[in-house]
């Protein structure tokens, strides 16, 4: 009966691996994972927003069963406040994805780009190391908005995310509007901006990856410092750092190289 588990026997000899055997084992498992070498992350803290968000995705998948194909039967946990949780929209992206990747902001923390009358903030993400054969099916830029007591609760703002098209320019022509949102001063939680098209462009043409800019305006069009309305940038708490997440779909069968 192929549908039932076989009886499991425990006959594996437990012994300590010799150093050479351990290295061989590491090499083989790395090969299975499709990695050329053991990653050595420089700054690895699992308390940052991106790893926490990714761990939520992982736990959601694990809770609802390991499926043979894709991330199907995934039930999301929906909340916008606190650490970055998984939204219903992520759920649909997950069902189609073979891989999900979060990217840390490699731009200068809290760098303000002053152009004419604006106080834009810059964010950069390195998409140059995407494994071959993976295509972006969805991508989001996520930034946390804290509650600010000093502002009137009914005050509203426009938050806009732009793609940078030119490295240096004095005008605003070098920006391409990607997504915009109206937020209340009293609002608290994660703001999610769709950057799918831009991410695809960056994967295909890494030279065009000049980052994103975030701009905040009052309803009468005045530029506002994002920090003054609670938008947490690089210097905020670890679990509320802005980050980017991309969902990938494999476009080809991945073959391991012969050793």
């Amino acid at each position, binding site marked *: 009966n*192929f549908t039932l588990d076989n009886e499991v*026997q*425990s006959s594996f000899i437990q012994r300590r691996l010799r150093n050479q055997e351990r290295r061989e084992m590491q090499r083989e498992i790395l090969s*299975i994972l499709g990695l050329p070498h053991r990653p050595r*992350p420089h700054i690895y803290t699992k308390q940052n927003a991106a790893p926490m968000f990714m761990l939520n995705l992982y736990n959601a998948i694990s809770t609802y069963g390991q499926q043979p194909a894709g991330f199907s039967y995934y039930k999301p946990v929906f909340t916008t406040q606190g650490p970055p949780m998984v939204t219903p929209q992520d759920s649909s992206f997950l069902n189609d994805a073979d891989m999900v990747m979060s*990217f840390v902001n490699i731009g200068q923390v809290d760098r303000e780009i002053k152009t004419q009358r604006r106080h834009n903030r810059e964010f950069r993400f390195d998409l140059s190391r995407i494994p071959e054969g993976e295509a972006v099916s969805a991508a989001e830029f996520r930034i946390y908005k804290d509650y600010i007591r000093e502002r009137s609760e009914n005050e509203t703002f426009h938050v806009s995310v732009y793609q940078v098209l030119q490295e240096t320019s004095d005008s605003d022509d070098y920006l391409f509007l990607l997504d915009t949102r109206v937020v209340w001063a009293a609002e608290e939680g994660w703001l999610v901006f769709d950057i799918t098209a831009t991410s695809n462009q960056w994967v295909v043409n890494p030279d065009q990856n000049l980052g994103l800019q975030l701009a905040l305006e009052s309803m009468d069009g005045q530029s506002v410092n994002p920090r003054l309305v609670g938008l947490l940038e690089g210097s905020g708490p670890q679990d509320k750092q802005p980050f980017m997440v991309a969902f990938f779909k494999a476009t080809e069968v991945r073959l391991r190289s012969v050793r």
Partner: protein
Amino acid sequence: SAHGHKGRNPNRSKKPKTPQDALKVAEAAAENLSTDPKQGCKKHELYVSFRDLGWQDWIIAPEGYAAYYCQGECAFPLNSYMNATNHAIVQTLVHFINPETVPKPCCAPTQLHGISVLYFDDSSNVILKKYRNMVVRTCGCH
């Protein structure tokens, strides 16, 4: 078709000259099997521990996974004690006819599951990746 052939051929390494000889060898193999059923194709425990490999600094989850492996002999008659494909039974019979050139069926996974792994890359980005066919669910003879 094995009825009426009660003779035994104890020399298993000798190549049978006719199909009847092969069946005699098969009967002998079945007799041997009945004395040592533990040699059959079975799923065995094997836990791959990322922690023991010293990778807990870059693999966030899981700590490891139960991979299992298949081990055991695929001996005649296959369907008496284990999962086996229909063709594996034919493969066994042909092996008896030409034991030096045709191998026995192999004890191997018949069903595999995937796992997800969450890890940091060199740039401290985080990757959640689905790996197919990583965990043995069932073993059988192919």
